[in-house]
């Protein structure tokens, strides 16, 4: 399984000289299976550059959205395969009690917010509410589960043979828990991340910032580290960087994380353009 980070920023795209190393594009991760199955996790602004690289060797793309906040769908209208009639594009999103995914996406992909409607897109487009039991796309097994974040939000676990990765870019598992982490069966998202080879997880805030952002749906980096350790993850990628955190601030957060205690996993800063191989 090959993973590439196309956007690691949260909340709002943050381009600029002070963010050029970690990158300013919002959430987007490419997952490529050994059999050529091609998944895109979230459609933040990073998806635009990803789309340009896709040629005829990728006839089908599956976009798995964790939720429909703007920073996770804003790039969708600029994803080139949507303009290509020969491309098959499947978009998967979290279920809702009232509206299907098409209706909810159309709130953004329609005038006045966007000049093109979903039904006008040239590609062969299919939309799906993500099933909360497991499903397969090509050779990849996917498990989605609801996780703690405002609004219907899922995390994903993707498995290929014996290797697995989990993607929880917007997650506040510590909400309402004074001593975090506690019993695994009472931790949001735990089943998705349990003993995963690679965990890509929300690490938006510092410990100092978090008390004023309780309930905003994101994690302080100490929570992320504690969760990854509790779950026995082998590698952790910090993700969903706050737009106010420039490169040196993010370096400082990583350094402090590494120095605070010996980490039982490899800590990888979520830098746009990073490629990782599993298995």
């Amino acid at each position, binding site marked *: 399984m090959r993973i590439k980070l196309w956007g690691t920023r949260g909340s709002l795209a943050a381009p600029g000289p002070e963010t050029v190393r970690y990158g300013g594009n919002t959430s987007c991760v490419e997952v490529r299976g050994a059999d050529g199955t091609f998944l895109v996790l979230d459609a933040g602004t990073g998806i635009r550059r990803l789309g340009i690289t896709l040629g005829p060797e990728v006839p089908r793309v599956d976009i798995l959205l964790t939720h429909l906040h703007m920073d996770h769908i804003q790039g969708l209208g600029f994803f080139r395969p949507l303009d290509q009639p020969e491309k098959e594009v499947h978009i998967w999103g979290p*279920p809702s009690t009232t509206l299907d995914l098409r209706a909810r996406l159309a709130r953004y992909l329609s005038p006045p917010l966007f000049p093109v409607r979903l039904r006008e897109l040239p590609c062969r487009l299919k939309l799906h509410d993500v099933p909360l039991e497991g499903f397969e796309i090509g050779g990849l097994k996917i498990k989605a589960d609801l996780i703690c974040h405002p609004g219907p939000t899922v995390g994903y676990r993707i498995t290929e043979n014996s290797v697995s990765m989990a993607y929880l870019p917007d997650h506040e598992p510590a*909400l*309402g828990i004074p001593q975090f982490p506690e019993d695994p*069966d*009472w931790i*949001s998202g735990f*089943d998705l991340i349990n003993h995963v080879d690679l965990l890509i997880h929300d690490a938006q805030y510092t410990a100092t910032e978090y008390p004023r952002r309780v309930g905003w749906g994101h994690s302080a980096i100490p929570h992320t580290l504690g969760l990854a350790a509790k779950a026995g993850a082998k590698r952790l990628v910090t993700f969903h960087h706050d737009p106010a955190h420039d490169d040196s601030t993010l370096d400082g957060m990583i350094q402090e994380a590494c120095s605070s205690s010996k980490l039982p996993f490899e800590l990888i800063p979520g830098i746009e353009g990073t490629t990782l191989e599993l298995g």
Partner: protein
Amino acid sequence: MPQRDLEIILMQRLANYLPIPVLLVGPSGNLLFYNAPAEALLGRRYEESGMISMKEWVTILPAIDEKGLPLPPEDRPLTIALQKRRAAHRTYWIRGFDGVYKKIEVTAFPLEGLAGRHLGAVAIFWETGSASDPPGDLRKA
């Protein structure tokens, strides 16, 4: 043990913050959790009672109605919420783990999640009386 459904986790967290007794059961009625005020009401900490089945907890925690007659399990608000998947509200007497009868007002409702998932039910208790004035002959219960 597999992780709880998120809605159950959020309900448990909320219950931990509330100063009123809250009980949480799974779809089959097994007791998943009760908070500290419920521990005081029932006379036993959750860690001591654990995840007991519905059949067990309705037996261990018998209830009597306003007339002093045993309240059948199917008439208890939490059972109605679970089985009929609608809210229920009733005042009755319950005998806690400590053997003390308490008069309680109970509001129970099912937890229905996204994609038609039936997750269990919640009961919230308001204690309104004590063992000094229960109706009927308690030996019938």
